[in-house]
């Protein structure tokens, strides 16, 4: 079941990436890309949520959050 879900979502993500042609984007075309909410990283206001997820769940990483250090494990 787990593997099936992983495969399904893996295919969806790969298809989405592969289906998009990476055409050259000029600087003047980047007004939307440069919007701060288009950022490809987690935002500062999400810090507590990322901490809570990493301390209450067994997995962490690959999201810009910490992968170790300090406890907060109360």
């Amino acid at each position: 079941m787990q593997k099936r879900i992983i495969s399904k979502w893996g295919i969806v993500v790969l298809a989405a990436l592969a289906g998009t042609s990476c055409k050259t984007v000029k600087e003047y075309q980047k007004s939307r890309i440069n919007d701060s909410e288009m950022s490809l990283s987690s935002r500062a206001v999400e810090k507590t949520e990322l901490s809570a997820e990493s301390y209450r769940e067994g997995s962490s990483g690959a999201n810009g959050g910490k992968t170790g250090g300090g406890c907060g494990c109360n």
Partner: protein
Amino acid sequence: MKKLSLSVIGMYLMMAHAFSQSHTMDSTGYIPKKLKLDEVNLVTSYYDQTANKSAVMGGDPGPKGIADVTDFANGLDLKFVGWDNKQRKNTVAAGLGIDYHTAASQAYVDSNGTSKNNGTRIYPTLSWSRENDQKGTSFEMGAYYSAEHNYYHSFGLNGSIAKKNKTNGEFSLKMVGFFDRINMIYPAEFYPVDSLKNAPVSDSIVYITSASGRTEALVYNNGQLVGNTKGHKQETPTKPRNTLTASLSFTQIMSPRMQGAVEMDLVYQSGYLGLPFHRVFYNTGKDTIETLPSQRVKLPIGFRLNYFLGDNIIIRSYYRFYADSWGLFSNTFNLELPIKITPFVSISPFYRFYMQTAAKYFAPYQVHTEQEQYFTSNYELAAFSSSMFGAGIRLAPPRGVLMNSLRIFEIRYAHYSQTTALNANMISMNLVFK
């Protein structure tokens, strides 16, 4: 005459304008800028959790297993920016975080529920980065420290490099090391109380470490306890835990409206990976301390895809697959939809779904047998799913919010629930001053 005067003034202004343009555009006239305070970032948040089956009480579903938590977290970051004589941007960032928590389970480190149930965590950070726009390269190095009253101390170092390519892609490599010392605070029943029962007959001092991690010296006179001393200190024993992480990421602008990223971490942990105040109750009813392997390898890989739909809606999506050497697998899905009410005001509803399998060393309360080598009843390592939803409001007008220097005001609420009966509410606020 009047027209002539206006023309002369107009020509003067045009020339002045043209002159100022040519001055700033001329690279030979480039003047390095010293580091200057560019941004102050304040994040404050409150976390409120209700749960049971605490790890301290070995997953006890009864009243002793209460795991309610509150946490008031505050972080202040100062960013200084300057340009050197090679037109490279230098950024120095200094941060300080202070959290104050209460944890009902912490009281049960002492089996009567009378241990200190709160604590403070302080974590300063310092980093320096340099960006070279002409070469499309950047690097960063930083240091981190964390001290917690009852738990452990952590020291971290990181370094990263990044390189942009000609097709709007960027590759980065980051190395992070955390070097922790864990205070070996055992549940009260595991302290060597025999040393007190067999108190020495002559004058002496016996050191004990209480359940809350405080060490005191008991003074005996002819075998009789005559008092405590504060002049004698003995450190709580500690054990090391090291975490080394190599992070690779690649970001790509795919179109004027879409960009994506792939992020992969390889994490290696070694040392004492359990916590000494986490109990495990065997199927016989006898209790012991959580015991876990001294090594763990984690492999998370995440994908991000952001799309600007029309003029007002942004789709932020994220998926992560995770696997580790303790047999835990997980999948995370995240979707956020910032909706721009005006160019400077947006509302961002979001939803996150997470599910994990259990680590092979996990079993619930009173299920482990004494024959097992490794065992834990910490529900963080159990099989469960969780969901989180909420929304944020962001104001970023060009002239500031209420005052010119407050450039961004953001507030966000999230409700988190696990199938283990853990529920939490979080509210966070971010203020950015320029």
